[in-house]
Protein backbone atom coordinates (compact mmCIF):
# COMPACT_ATOMS: atom_id res chain seq x y z
CA UNK A 1 0.00 0.00 0.00
CA UNK A 2 1.46 3.31 -1.02
CA UNK A 3 1.79 6.23 1.36
CA UNK A 4 -1.38 8.23 1.96
CA UNK A 5 -1.52 11.57 0.17
CA UNK A 6 -3.88 13.17 2.64
CA UNK A 7 -3.81 12.09 6.24
CA UNK A 8 -6.21 13.60 8.74
CA UNK A 9 -5.90 12.72 12.42
CA UNK A 10 -8.38 13.78 15.11
CA UNK A 11 -9.01 16.98 13.25
CA UNK A 12 -11.11 19.61 14.98
CA UNK A 13 -12.06 23.12 13.94
CA UNK A 14 -13.69 25.61 16.24
CA UNK A 15 -15.27 28.87 15.11
CA UNK A 16 -16.25 31.83 17.16
CA UNK A 17 -19.49 33.00 15.67
CA UNK A 18 -20.31 36.66 16.11
CA UNK A 19 -23.88 37.51 16.81
CA UNK A 20 -24.15 41.24 16.78
CA UNK A 21 -23.65 43.01 13.52
CA UNK A 22 -24.78 46.47 14.50
CA UNK A 23 -23.65 47.17 18.02
CA UNK A 24 -25.05 50.14 19.89
CA UNK A 25 -22.77 52.90 21.11
CA UNK A 26 -23.05 51.64 24.65
CA UNK A 27 -22.12 48.18 23.52
CA UNK A 28 -19.26 49.59 21.49
CA UNK A 29 -17.71 50.83 24.72
CA UNK A 30 -18.20 47.47 26.39
CA UNK A 31 -16.87 45.81 23.29
CA UNK A 32 -13.45 47.37 23.73
CA UNK A 33 -13.02 45.28 26.84
CA UNK A 34 -14.84 42.21 25.66
CA UNK A 35 -14.89 42.14 21.87
CA UNK A 36 -18.09 40.79 20.31
CA UNK A 37 -20.08 38.26 22.26
CA UNK A 38 -19.34 35.03 20.50
CA UNK A 39 -20.73 31.57 20.46
CA UNK A 40 -18.40 28.64 20.05
CA UNK A 41 -19.24 26.43 17.14
CA UNK A 42 -17.40 23.20 16.45
CA UNK A 43 -17.47 22.91 12.68
CA UNK A 44 -15.46 19.69 12.80
CA UNK A 45 -14.67 17.39 15.67
CA UNK A 46 -12.50 14.33 15.88
CA UNK A 47 -12.33 13.68 12.13
CA UNK A 48 -9.82 11.08 10.99
CA UNK A 49 -9.29 9.49 7.61
CA UNK A 50 -6.66 9.08 4.99
CA UNK A 51 -6.80 9.05 1.23
CA UNK A 52 -4.29 7.67 -1.21
CA UNK A 53 -3.10 8.53 -4.66
CA UNK A 54 -5.79 8.26 -7.35
CA UNK A 55 -8.67 8.10 -4.91
CA UNK A 56 -11.79 10.17 -5.39
CA UNK A 57 -13.67 11.05 -2.28
CA UNK A 58 -17.08 12.67 -2.22
CA UNK A 59 -18.02 14.56 0.91
CA UNK A 60 -21.72 14.67 1.65
CA UNK A 61 -23.89 15.96 4.45
CA UNK A 62 -26.51 18.57 5.14
CA UNK A 63 -25.81 22.32 5.27
CA UNK A 64 -23.48 23.27 8.09
CA UNK A 65 -22.10 19.79 8.53
CA UNK A 66 -18.53 21.00 7.97
CA UNK A 67 -17.93 19.94 4.37
CA UNK A 68 -16.51 23.21 3.11
CA UNK A 69 -14.50 23.71 6.29
CA UNK A 70 -12.88 20.34 5.73
CA UNK A 71 -11.95 21.25 2.16
CA UNK A 72 -10.47 24.58 3.24
CA UNK A 73 -8.45 22.87 5.96
CA UNK A 74 -7.00 20.45 3.41
CA UNK A 75 -6.21 23.41 1.15
CA UNK A 76 -4.26 25.05 3.98
CA UNK A 77 -6.47 28.14 4.00
CA UNK A 78 -7.73 27.42 7.51
CA UNK A 79 -5.61 26.07 10.32
CA UNK A 80 -6.91 23.28 12.57
CA UNK A 81 -7.91 24.06 16.13
CA UNK A 82 -6.79 20.60 17.10
CA UNK A 83 -5.46 17.49 15.40
CA UNK A 84 -3.30 17.20 12.33
CA UNK A 85 -3.47 17.27 8.58
CA UNK A 86 -0.67 16.03 6.39
CA UNK A 87 -0.86 16.74 2.70
CA UNK A 88 1.92 15.31 0.58
CA UNK A 89 2.18 17.59 -2.43
CA UNK A 90 0.31 20.67 -3.51
CA UNK A 91 -3.40 21.06 -2.86
CA UNK A 92 -5.43 23.26 -5.13
CA UNK A 93 -8.99 23.72 -6.04
CA UNK A 94 -12.00 25.70 -6.77
CA UNK A 95 -14.17 27.03 -4.01
CA UNK A 96 -16.65 29.76 -4.68
CA UNK A 97 -17.65 30.75 -8.11
CA UNK A 98 -15.43 33.47 -9.57
CA UNK A 99 -14.39 34.51 -6.11
CA UNK A 100 -10.94 35.97 -6.17
CA UNK A 101 -11.05 37.23 -9.71
CA UNK A 102 -10.73 40.96 -9.91
CA UNK A 103 -13.69 42.28 -11.93
CA UNK A 104 -11.75 45.19 -13.43
CA UNK A 105 -8.84 43.12 -14.66
CA UNK A 106 -8.84 41.12 -17.86
CA UNK A 107 -9.01 37.34 -17.85
CA UNK A 108 -5.34 37.25 -18.81
CA UNK A 109 -4.28 39.42 -15.87
CA UNK A 110 -6.42 37.36 -13.54
CA UNK A 111 -4.74 34.15 -14.67
CA UNK A 112 -1.33 35.63 -13.85
CA UNK A 113 -2.51 36.95 -10.48
CA UNK A 114 -4.22 33.70 -9.46
CA UNK A 115 -1.21 31.62 -10.48
CA UNK A 116 1.09 33.90 -8.50
CA UNK A 117 -1.13 33.70 -5.42
CA UNK A 118 -1.24 29.92 -5.66
CA UNK A 119 2.50 30.14 -5.21
CA UNK A 120 3.67 29.27 -8.71
CA UNK A 121 6.61 31.00 -10.30
CA UNK A 122 6.36 33.33 -13.24
CA UNK A 123 7.76 30.70 -15.58
CA UNK A 124 5.36 28.02 -14.34
CA UNK A 125 2.39 30.29 -14.90
CA UNK A 126 3.56 31.46 -18.32
CA UNK A 127 4.17 27.85 -19.35
CA UNK A 128 0.59 26.89 -18.53
CA UNK A 129 -1.02 30.09 -19.76
CA UNK A 130 -1.97 28.79 -23.21
CA UNK A 131 -3.41 25.59 -21.73
CA UNK A 132 -5.59 27.61 -19.37
CA UNK A 133 -6.93 29.81 -22.16
CA UNK A 134 -7.57 26.78 -24.37
CA UNK A 135 -9.29 24.75 -21.66
CA UNK A 136 -11.54 27.62 -20.62
CA UNK A 137 -12.47 28.27 -24.29
CA UNK A 138 -12.17 32.00 -23.61
CA UNK A 139 -9.53 32.94 -26.18
CA UNK A 140 -11.79 35.62 -27.67
CA UNK A 141 -12.54 37.22 -24.31
CA UNK A 142 -9.23 36.88 -22.54
CA UNK A 143 -8.35 40.59 -22.79
CA UNK A 144 -11.77 41.75 -21.62
CA UNK A 145 -12.42 42.66 -17.96
CA UNK A 146 -13.80 39.73 -16.00
CA UNK A 147 -16.78 41.84 -14.87
CA UNK A 148 -18.25 41.35 -18.35
CA UNK A 149 -18.08 37.55 -18.04
CA UNK A 150 -21.14 35.43 -17.40
CA UNK A 151 -21.04 33.17 -14.35
CA UNK A 152 -20.38 30.21 -16.62
CA UNK A 153 -17.40 31.97 -18.21
CA UNK A 154 -15.94 32.88 -14.81
CA UNK A 155 -16.34 29.30 -13.71
CA UNK A 156 -14.56 28.03 -16.82
CA UNK A 157 -11.67 30.38 -16.21
CA UNK A 158 -11.50 29.50 -12.52
CA UNK A 159 -11.62 25.79 -13.16
CA UNK A 160 -9.04 25.92 -15.94
CA UNK A 161 -6.67 27.93 -13.73
CA UNK A 162 -7.15 25.67 -10.73
CA UNK A 163 -6.42 22.42 -12.54
CA UNK A 164 -3.73 23.71 -14.90
CA UNK A 165 -0.94 23.15 -12.39
CA UNK A 166 -2.06 19.57 -11.78
CA UNK A 167 -2.01 19.70 -8.00
CA UNK A 168 -1.53 16.45 -6.14
CA UNK A 169 -4.77 17.05 -4.28
CA UNK A 170 -7.77 18.44 -6.16
CA UNK A 171 -10.54 20.13 -4.22
CA UNK A 172 -13.86 20.90 -5.87
CA UNK A 173 -16.60 22.61 -3.88
CA UNK A 174 -20.05 22.55 -5.51
CA UNK A 175 -19.19 24.98 -8.29
CA UNK A 176 -19.31 22.68 -11.32
CA UNK A 177 -23.10 22.52 -11.15
CA UNK A 178 -23.21 26.00 -12.75
CA UNK A 179 -21.41 24.96 -15.90
CA UNK A 180 -23.22 23.81 -19.01
CA UNK A 181 -23.42 20.15 -19.95
CA UNK A 182 -20.54 20.36 -22.37
CA UNK A 183 -18.09 21.95 -19.94
CA UNK A 184 -19.16 19.71 -17.05
CA UNK A 185 -18.40 16.62 -19.10
CA UNK A 186 -15.06 18.05 -20.17
CA UNK A 187 -14.19 19.08 -16.60
CA UNK A 188 -15.08 15.73 -15.05
CA UNK A 189 -13.21 13.99 -17.85
CA UNK A 190 -10.13 16.05 -17.03
CA UNK A 191 -10.44 15.33 -13.31
CA UNK A 192 -10.58 11.61 -14.11
CA UNK A 193 -7.42 11.89 -16.21
CA UNK A 194 -5.60 13.71 -13.42
CA UNK A 195 -6.65 10.95 -11.03
CA UNK A 196 -5.20 8.36 -13.36
CA UNK A 197 -1.96 10.31 -13.17
CA UNK A 198 -2.12 9.98 -9.39
CA UNK A 199 -4.01 13.03 -8.10
CA UNK A 200 -6.44 12.63 -5.24
CA UNK A 201 -9.85 14.23 -5.69
CA UNK A 202 -12.11 15.62 -2.99
CA UNK A 203 -15.52 16.76 -4.07
CA UNK A 204 -18.29 18.45 -2.14
CA UNK A 205 -21.73 18.43 -3.68
CA UNK A 206 -25.37 18.31 -2.86
CA UNK A 207 -25.98 16.56 -6.13
CA UNK A 208 -25.68 13.01 -4.94
CA UNK A 209 -25.90 11.77 -8.50
CA UNK A 210 -22.63 13.42 -9.47
CA UNK A 211 -20.95 12.15 -6.31
CA UNK A 212 -22.10 8.64 -7.22
CA UNK A 213 -20.88 9.01 -10.75
CA UNK A 214 -17.45 10.46 -10.01
CA UNK A 215 -16.40 9.21 -6.60
CA UNK A 216 -15.41 5.73 -5.50
CA UNK A 217 -15.60 6.62 -1.86
CA UNK A 218 -17.82 8.90 0.18
CA UNK A 219 -17.54 10.49 3.59
CA UNK A 220 -20.76 11.51 5.29
CA UNK A 221 -20.34 14.38 7.70
CA UNK A 222 -22.97 15.15 10.29
CA UNK A 223 -22.59 18.08 12.67
CA UNK A 224 -18.86 18.05 12.19
CA UNK A 225 -18.31 14.36 12.76
CA UNK A 226 -17.83 11.48 10.39
CA UNK A 227 -21.06 9.53 10.29
CA UNK A 228 -19.99 7.07 7.63
CA UNK A 229 -16.97 6.49 5.43
CA UNK A 230 -16.90 3.85 2.74
CA UNK A 231 -17.84 2.93 -0.81
CA UNK A 232 -20.01 5.62 -2.38
CA UNK A 233 -23.10 3.48 -2.96
CA UNK A 234 -23.30 2.32 0.65
CA UNK A 235 -22.73 5.74 2.19
CA UNK A 236 -25.05 7.58 -0.18
CA UNK A 237 -27.64 4.84 0.32
CA UNK A 238 -27.50 5.17 4.09
CA UNK A 239 -27.62 8.96 3.81
CA UNK A 240 -30.67 8.86 1.56
CA UNK A 241 -32.39 6.33 3.80
CA UNK A 242 -31.99 8.56 6.82
CA UNK A 243 -33.08 11.64 4.95
CA UNK A 244 -36.19 9.72 3.92
CA UNK A 245 -36.87 8.73 7.52
CA UNK A 246 -36.28 12.25 8.69
CA UNK A 247 -38.84 13.53 6.22
CA UNK A 248 -41.33 10.82 7.18
CA UNK A 249 -41.14 11.42 10.92
CA UNK A 250 -40.54 15.16 10.79
Amino acid at each position, binding site marked *: MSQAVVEVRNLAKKYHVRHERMPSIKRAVVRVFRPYPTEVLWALRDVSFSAGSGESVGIIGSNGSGKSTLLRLIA*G*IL*VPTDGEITVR*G*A*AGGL*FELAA*GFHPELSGADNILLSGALMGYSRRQVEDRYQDIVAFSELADFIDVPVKTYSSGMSLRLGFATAIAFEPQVLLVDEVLAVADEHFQRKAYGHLARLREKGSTLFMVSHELASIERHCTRAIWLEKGKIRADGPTEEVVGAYLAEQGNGNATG
Partner: protein
Amino acid sequence: MSTTAKPGALSPAWRWAITQLVRRDLKVRYKNSALGFCWSFLNPLMQIAVMTIVFRYIMGSRIQNFSMELFTCFLPWMFFSQALNDGAVCVSKDFLLVKKYPFPRMILPISSLCSNFVHLCFGFAVLFIIFILLPVHFNVYMLWVIPFLIIQAALTLGLVLLLSTLHMYYEDIRFLLGSLTQLLFFLCPIVYTIDQVLESDRLAPIWKELYIVGNPLTPLFIGYRTALLHGGEWPVPDFWLYTGISAVWSAIILALGVLVWRRYQWQFPEMV
Protein backbone atom coordinates in the same frame (compact mmCIF):
# COMPACT_ATOMS: atom_id res chain seq x y z
CA MET B 1 7.72 13.25 -2.43
CA SER B 2 7.56 16.72 -1.14
CA THR B 3 5.56 17.98 1.78
CA THR B 4 3.95 21.34 1.21
CA ALA B 5 5.81 24.19 2.82
CA LYS B 6 4.26 25.52 5.97
CA PRO B 7 1.74 28.08 4.84
CA GLY B 8 2.44 31.61 5.86
CA ALA B 9 6.19 31.48 5.47
CA LEU B 10 7.22 34.53 3.51
CA SER B 11 10.04 33.65 1.18
CA PRO B 12 11.60 35.44 -1.80
CA ALA B 13 9.56 33.11 -4.02
CA TRP B 14 6.56 35.31 -3.29
CA ARG B 15 8.15 38.38 -4.85
CA TRP B 16 6.40 37.70 -8.12
CA ALA B 17 3.04 37.53 -6.37
CA ILE B 18 3.77 40.90 -4.79
CA THR B 19 4.59 42.41 -8.19
CA GLN B 20 1.36 41.02 -9.58
CA LEU B 21 -0.65 42.59 -6.75
CA VAL B 22 1.12 45.94 -7.22
CA ARG B 23 0.46 45.77 -10.94
CA ARG B 24 -3.20 45.11 -10.24
CA ASP B 25 -3.44 48.04 -7.79
CA LEU B 26 -1.89 50.45 -10.26
CA LYS B 27 -4.05 49.25 -13.15
CA VAL B 28 -7.26 49.39 -11.16
CA ARG B 29 -6.67 52.74 -9.51
CA TYR B 30 -6.72 54.78 -12.70
CA LYS B 31 -8.67 52.39 -14.89
CA ASN B 32 -11.16 54.88 -16.30
CA SER B 33 -9.31 58.17 -15.98
CA ALA B 34 -7.99 60.05 -18.98
CA LEU B 35 -4.95 61.45 -17.19
CA GLY B 36 -4.14 58.13 -15.50
CA PHE B 37 -0.82 58.14 -13.76
CA CYS B 38 -0.54 61.92 -13.93
CA TRP B 39 -2.89 62.02 -10.97
CA SER B 40 -0.24 60.64 -8.69
CA PHE B 41 1.63 63.95 -9.01
CA LEU B 42 -1.19 66.28 -10.08
CA ASN B 43 -2.92 65.76 -6.75
CA PRO B 44 0.03 66.79 -4.58
CA LEU B 45 0.80 69.69 -6.93
CA MET B 46 -2.70 71.09 -6.56
CA GLN B 47 -2.65 70.73 -2.81
CA ILE B 48 0.75 72.38 -2.60
CA ALA B 49 -0.53 75.28 -4.71
CA VAL B 50 -3.53 75.83 -2.44
CA MET B 51 -1.51 75.51 0.74
CA THR B 52 1.06 77.94 -0.57
CA ILE B 53 -1.66 80.48 -1.22
CA VAL B 54 -3.20 79.97 2.20
CA PHE B 55 -0.11 79.80 4.36
CA ARG B 56 2.22 82.09 2.46
CA TYR B 57 -0.03 84.79 1.03
CA ILE B 58 -3.02 84.80 3.38
CA MET B 59 -1.51 83.84 6.70
CA GLY B 60 1.82 85.37 5.85
CA SER B 61 4.15 82.55 6.76
CA ARG B 62 7.70 83.90 6.90
CA ILE B 63 9.22 80.72 5.48
CA GLN B 64 11.34 81.56 2.46
CA ASN B 65 10.69 79.53 -0.65
CA PHE B 66 7.51 78.16 0.91
CA SER B 67 6.24 75.92 -1.88
CA MET B 68 9.54 74.08 -2.25
CA GLU B 69 9.87 73.63 1.51
CA LEU B 70 6.36 72.22 1.47
CA PHE B 71 6.90 70.04 -1.58
CA THR B 72 9.88 68.17 -0.10
CA CYS B 73 7.84 67.15 2.94
CA PHE B 74 4.48 66.78 1.31
CA LEU B 75 5.53 63.92 -0.97
CA PRO B 76 6.66 61.67 1.91
CA TRP B 77 3.59 62.74 3.84
CA MET B 78 1.28 61.65 1.00
CA PHE B 79 3.14 58.35 0.96
CA PHE B 80 2.59 57.93 4.68
CA SER B 81 -1.08 58.84 4.81
CA GLN B 82 -2.09 57.02 1.62
CA ALA B 83 -0.18 53.89 2.59
CA LEU B 84 -1.78 53.95 6.02
CA ASN B 85 -5.32 54.41 4.72
CA ASP B 86 -4.93 51.85 1.94
CA GLY B 87 -3.06 49.46 4.19
CA ALA B 88 -5.64 49.44 6.96
CA VAL B 89 -8.17 47.85 4.58
CA CYS B 90 -5.73 45.64 2.68
CA VAL B 91 -7.07 42.39 4.14
CA SER B 92 -10.76 43.30 4.04
CA LYS B 93 -10.42 44.50 0.47
CA ASP B 94 -8.87 41.23 -0.66
CA PHE B 95 -10.93 39.06 1.60
CA LEU B 96 -12.00 36.86 -1.30
CA LEU B 97 -8.37 36.11 -2.09
CA VAL B 98 -7.68 35.33 1.56
CA LYS B 99 -10.55 32.85 1.53
CA LYS B 100 -9.36 31.23 -1.65
CA TYR B 101 -5.59 30.77 -1.51
CA PRO B 102 -3.24 29.88 1.35
CA PHE B 103 -0.56 32.44 0.39
CA PRO B 104 1.45 34.11 3.18
CA ARG B 105 -0.87 36.90 4.30
CA MET B 106 2.01 39.32 4.70
CA ILE B 107 2.16 39.88 0.94
CA LEU B 108 -1.06 41.92 1.11
CA PRO B 109 0.24 44.75 3.34
CA ILE B 110 3.63 44.62 1.64
CA SER B 111 2.16 44.99 -1.84
CA SER B 112 -0.15 47.77 -0.66
CA LEU B 113 2.88 49.63 0.68
CA CYS B 114 4.78 49.00 -2.56
CA SER B 115 1.96 50.42 -4.73
CA ASN B 116 2.06 53.61 -2.74
CA PHE B 117 5.83 53.68 -2.99
CA VAL B 118 5.49 53.66 -6.78
CA HIS B 119 3.37 56.82 -6.51
CA LEU B 120 5.99 58.39 -4.29
CA CYS B 121 8.60 57.68 -6.95
CA PHE B 122 6.48 59.50 -9.53
CA GLY B 123 6.27 62.44 -7.17
CA PHE B 124 10.03 62.46 -6.65
CA ALA B 125 10.54 62.32 -10.40
CA VAL B 126 8.52 65.54 -10.71
CA LEU B 127 10.49 67.10 -7.87
CA PHE B 128 13.68 66.13 -9.66
CA ILE B 129 12.51 67.89 -12.82
CA ILE B 130 11.63 71.00 -10.82
CA PHE B 131 15.10 70.91 -9.22
CA ILE B 132 16.67 70.91 -12.66
CA LEU B 133 14.47 73.78 -13.86
CA LEU B 134 14.95 76.09 -10.86
CA PRO B 135 17.87 75.18 -10.72
CA VAL B 136 18.73 73.64 -7.37
CA HIS B 137 22.18 72.18 -7.52
CA PHE B 138 22.49 68.56 -6.59
CA ASN B 139 24.70 67.34 -3.76
CA VAL B 140 25.45 64.15 -1.86
CA TYR B 141 23.39 65.21 1.16
CA MET B 142 20.28 64.51 -0.87
CA LEU B 143 21.04 60.81 -0.60
CA TRP B 144 20.13 61.00 3.09
CA VAL B 145 16.55 60.79 1.87
CA ILE B 146 17.05 57.05 1.33
CA PRO B 147 17.68 56.03 4.97
CA PHE B 148 14.88 58.34 6.09
CA LEU B 149 12.53 56.63 3.64
CA ILE B 150 13.59 53.22 4.95
CA ILE B 151 12.75 54.25 8.51
CA GLN B 152 9.44 55.67 7.32
CA ALA B 153 8.58 52.52 5.36
CA ALA B 154 9.31 50.35 8.41
CA LEU B 155 7.14 52.55 10.60
CA THR B 156 4.33 52.57 8.04
CA LEU B 157 4.42 48.79 7.55
CA GLY B 158 4.31 48.26 11.31
CA LEU B 159 1.29 50.53 11.65
CA VAL B 160 -0.39 48.92 8.65
CA LEU B 161 0.01 45.44 10.16
CA LEU B 162 -1.54 46.61 13.43
CA LEU B 163 -4.33 48.61 11.82
CA SER B 164 -5.32 46.03 9.22
CA THR B 165 -5.57 43.32 11.89
CA LEU B 166 -7.66 45.62 14.05
CA HIS B 167 -9.80 46.56 11.06
CA MET B 168 -10.89 42.93 10.71
CA TYR B 169 -12.55 43.24 14.11
CA TYR B 170 -13.51 46.91 14.19
CA GLU B 171 -14.48 48.65 11.01
CA ASP B 172 -14.35 51.88 13.00
CA ILE B 173 -10.63 51.97 12.30
CA ARG B 174 -11.15 53.25 8.80
CA PHE B 175 -13.24 56.20 9.91
CA LEU B 176 -11.02 57.00 12.84
CA LEU B 177 -7.97 56.87 10.63
CA GLY B 178 -9.32 59.53 8.29
CA SER B 179 -9.39 62.21 10.96
CA LEU B 180 -6.32 60.93 12.80
CA THR B 181 -4.11 61.31 9.74
CA GLN B 182 -5.42 64.83 9.28
CA LEU B 183 -4.48 65.67 12.87
CA LEU B 184 -1.08 64.10 12.46
CA PHE B 185 -0.48 66.24 9.39
CA PHE B 186 -0.52 69.34 11.56
CA LEU B 187 1.54 67.67 14.27
CA CYS B 188 4.43 67.19 11.86
CA PRO B 189 6.71 69.97 10.62
CA ILE B 190 5.25 70.10 7.12
CA VAL B 191 3.44 73.43 6.68
CA TYR B 192 5.76 75.02 9.23
CA THR B 193 9.40 74.40 10.09
CA ILE B 194 10.97 72.93 13.19
CA ASP B 195 12.60 76.32 13.86
CA GLN B 196 9.18 77.87 14.33
CA VAL B 197 8.37 75.20 16.94
CA LEU B 198 11.65 75.66 18.78
CA GLU B 199 11.42 79.47 18.69
CA SER B 200 7.83 79.56 19.94
CA ASP B 201 7.63 81.23 23.36
CA ARG B 202 4.20 79.80 24.10
CA LEU B 203 5.39 76.20 24.20
CA ALA B 204 7.12 74.93 27.34
CA PRO B 205 10.47 73.19 26.64
CA ILE B 206 9.00 69.86 27.68
CA TRP B 207 6.43 70.08 24.86
CA LYS B 208 9.11 70.94 22.36
CA GLU B 209 11.11 67.93 23.51
CA LEU B 210 8.04 65.72 23.32
CA TYR B 211 7.23 67.07 19.89
CA ILE B 212 10.49 65.71 18.52
CA VAL B 213 10.96 62.58 20.63
CA GLY B 214 7.35 61.42 20.82
CA ASN B 215 6.53 61.55 17.13
CA PRO B 216 8.80 59.33 15.04
CA LEU B 217 7.76 61.27 11.93
CA THR B 218 9.13 64.62 13.12
CA PRO B 219 12.86 63.91 12.66
CA LEU B 220 12.10 62.33 9.28
CA PHE B 221 10.37 65.43 7.93
CA ILE B 222 13.13 67.64 9.30
CA GLY B 223 15.48 65.26 7.53
CA TYR B 224 13.78 65.31 4.12
CA ARG B 225 13.65 69.08 4.05
CA THR B 226 17.21 69.58 5.19
CA ALA B 227 18.68 66.90 2.97
CA LEU B 228 16.94 68.13 -0.16
CA LEU B 229 17.07 71.90 0.29
CA HIS B 230 19.64 72.88 2.87
CA GLY B 231 22.60 70.71 2.04
CA GLY B 232 22.71 68.89 5.32
CA GLU B 233 22.77 71.86 7.69
CA TRP B 234 20.73 70.01 10.28
CA PRO B 235 18.67 72.59 12.14
CA VAL B 236 18.37 70.77 15.47
CA PRO B 237 21.53 70.24 17.56
CA ASP B 238 20.86 66.60 18.38
CA PHE B 239 19.31 65.73 15.06
CA TRP B 240 20.98 62.35 14.72
CA LEU B 241 20.03 61.35 18.23
CA TYR B 242 16.41 62.17 17.41
CA THR B 243 16.61 60.27 14.14
CA GLY B 244 17.99 57.32 16.10
CA ILE B 245 15.05 57.51 18.49
CA SER B 246 12.70 57.64 15.51
CA ALA B 247 14.36 54.53 14.06
CA VAL B 248 13.97 52.72 17.39
CA TRP B 249 10.30 53.72 17.53
CA SER B 250 9.80 52.40 14.02
CA ALA B 251 11.56 49.14 14.78
CA ILE B 252 9.43 48.59 17.89
CA ILE B 253 6.20 49.30 16.02
CA LEU B 254 7.24 47.03 13.16
CA ALA B 255 8.14 44.21 15.55
CA LEU B 256 4.84 44.64 17.37
CA GLY B 257 2.99 44.63 14.05
CA VAL B 258 4.67 41.42 12.93
CA LEU B 259 3.89 39.74 16.27
CA VAL B 260 0.22 40.69 16.18
CA TRP B 261 -0.03 39.75 12.52
CA ARG B 262 1.52 36.31 13.10
CA ARG B 263 -0.93 35.69 15.88
CA TYR B 264 -4.03 36.65 13.92
CA GLN B 265 -3.30 36.14 10.22
CA TRP B 266 -4.81 32.66 10.03
CA GLN B 267 -8.03 33.81 11.60
CA PHE B 268 -8.67 36.23 8.74
CA PRO B 269 -10.45 33.70 6.48
CA GLU B 270 -12.86 32.87 9.30
CA MET B 271 -14.13 36.43 9.57
CA VAL B 272 -17.53 37.09 8.14
